[in-house]
């Protein structure tokens, strides 16, 4: 308990941990969020996102997609339904828009690539407008009409709600996940100080047993990291208005899973290498790789290897959080969440076994 409290204080007061784990993410979410916001603002000339569409010729959706405002964002290929789906599958389109018998469906690629978020939100805005127009035309209720139309979309993709997607929504999630991964640094720093230094030597000559010491330190770094993540979480919600979905407990649980994983990872590698500096380097590069392949910064086309990267811990967390916010497949979310906790548990067990061997030899 004493170990826990002191470790907690140490982590929490550590200037590196405060700047890296709280200040930095808040800043970076702002910078990247703003950058992307300007990216999709109309006066910015940017590469439009590929979309395949099978729509009624001359219909309002076609007119909407062909309008000059929309064509700035979306590069729409009008084609047959089969071809539209093929383009989606081959990755040449981020989403496929299918209009049939007056109802509109948006198809995301399997696994719900993050690139589909912006095109979906644009189509969604069309549905909102459509709902409004229908309501005006029929003298009905706008909301009711909107729900009517969105019910059609939900056949394939759950509704996005009435909310307009913001780039902050995307970056806040990927950043917070990444930052919680980096919080493994807390664990490494604390273990370095409290077990692998003179201060550690001093702790090791006290009557406290090693498991108690390790356990206390672990709990301290996990709780600190989680709380630091929560500061960022609350900040993005309140100040940036980031949408984390309706199921906040699920999101918090997922973030906790990420924290556990990163602490286990950090402690595993410090015990593996017995060299805090080397562990730190491995930690940092490891996190960048995991973040990168899971599309934290950019979605890279890894082709067949994509399947492996889907199971990177960051990616698992993204699936659950985005899924929870924007209506993902429930089973898959639960599977991914469990997998995240299993990763953490396995690393913990390995770290524990290593620790038993390393610290008693």
């Amino acid at each position, binding site marked *: *308990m*004493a*170990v826990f409290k*002191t470790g907690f*204080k*140490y982590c929490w*007061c*550590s*200037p590196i941990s405060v700047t890296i784990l709280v200040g930095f993410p808040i800043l970076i979410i702002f910078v990247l969020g703003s950058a992307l916001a300007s990216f999709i603002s109309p006066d910015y000339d940017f590469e439009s996102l590929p979309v395949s569409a099978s729509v009624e010729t001359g219909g309002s959706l076609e007119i909407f997609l062909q309008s000059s405002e929309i064509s700035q964002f979306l590069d729409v290929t009008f084609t047959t339904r089969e071809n539209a789906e093929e383009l989606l599958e081959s990755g040449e389109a981020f989403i496929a828009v299918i209009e049939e018998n007056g109802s509109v469906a948006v198809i995301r690629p399997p696994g719900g690539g993050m690139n589909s978020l912006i095109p979906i939100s644009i189509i969604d805005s069309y549905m909102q407008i459509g709902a409004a127009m229908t309501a005006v035309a029929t003298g009905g209720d706008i909301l009711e009409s909107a729900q009517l139309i969105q019910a059609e979309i939900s056949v394939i993709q759950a509704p996005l709600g009435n909310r307009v997607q913001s780039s902050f929504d995307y970056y806040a999630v990927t950043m917070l996940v990444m930052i919680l991964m980096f919080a493994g640094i807390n664990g490494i720093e604390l273990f370095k*100080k409290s077990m692998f*230094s*003179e*201060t*550690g*030597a*001093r*702790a*090791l*000559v*006290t*009557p*406290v*047993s090693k498991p108690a010491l390790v356990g206390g330190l672990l709990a301290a770094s996990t709780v600190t990291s989680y709380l630091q993540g929560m500061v960022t979480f609350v900040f993005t919600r309140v100040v940036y208005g980031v949408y984390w979905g309706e199921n906040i407990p699920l999101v918090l649980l997922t973030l906790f899973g990420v924290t556990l994983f990163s602490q286990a990872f950090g402690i595993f590698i410090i015990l593996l290498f017995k060299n805090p500096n080397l562990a730190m380097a491995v930690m940092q590069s490891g996190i960048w790789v995991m973040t990168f392949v899971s599309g934290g910064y950019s979605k890279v086309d890894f082709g067949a290897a994509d399947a492996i990267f889907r199971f990177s811990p960051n990616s698992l967390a993204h699936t659950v959080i985005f899924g929870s916010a924007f209506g993902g497949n429930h089973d898959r979310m639960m599977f991914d969440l469990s997998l995240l906790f299993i990763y953490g548990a396995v690393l913990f067990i390995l770290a524990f076994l290593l620790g038993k061997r390393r610290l*008693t*030899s």
Partner: protein
Amino acid sequence: MILTMTGTVKRYRALIALDHLTLNVHKGETLGLLGPNGAGKTTAIRVLTGLTGADAGKITLFGKELRGKANSADIRRRIGLVPQDLALYETLSARDNLEYFGKLYGVYGAELKKRADEALEILGLTDVAKKTPKKFSGGMKRRLNIGCAIIHKPELLILDEPTVGIDPQSRNHILGFVSEISRLGTTVIYTSHYMEEVERVCSRVCIMDTGRVIADGSVDEIAKAAIFEEAITLEIKEPTSALSESIKKIQGVSRCDIENRTVTIVSAADSGNLARIIEVAAPYVILGISAKRATLEDAFLALTGKTLRDGGEAS
């Protein structure tokens, strides 16, 4: 006997850090462990506190043999260790540091608070109890470093070079503290490469070099045993070579050199030659006399061929 180390060997690959080290510590004494850098002082401490395993030998602490690597919790509670390097949480207050290590030693609640107050008081840190060591001077950090090892009132306190690189005032404070705690009955192992410190606070000295004890005894005993010669310097108005010849005839004198007015004589220690030399030199005008008595410093030099300066590098 609180500690016995017999034939302790510790190797770091090809390097032999402890070479069949034998060391005994009696209850209540203050043992000075003196040796240049790399002599193996810190290694000896790491082995006996269970931080590193020895490759051979037998160690007994408080009557219990140290088996495997670590001491039992019961033994550990009776020992206080002040590591050679500062071992503090720089970002936590002085009091938090003291209380953390106090708790690790199983001291809690009001008792812990009382002992922290006492430690701050005795080490002169009461005014800065709430400050973090980051803002401390070197001497204050050293004192807090000691504080963290005494909060549980150990029976055996081990200080590994506790005064390295600090101001004279803090050093005095620390030496005074060691004398005081020793007077109150704590057994102390004090490692240092400062002669005058060991001479001042220790009742017994072990000189270590290359992983073994090369001299063991009271400060005086060691000085005497090690020093076979002493230097006598005479300042004479007009020395002649005849004087030099007469002095050289005195038994025990091995050398007599004249340089301008200075006559340097090397003579066997404790031979009583000083009086005879003065007798021989009486007809001359003696301006000054100095005789250098053997000190621990000389003993060290004679035993190891190394001088003990700050850093203790062999010269």
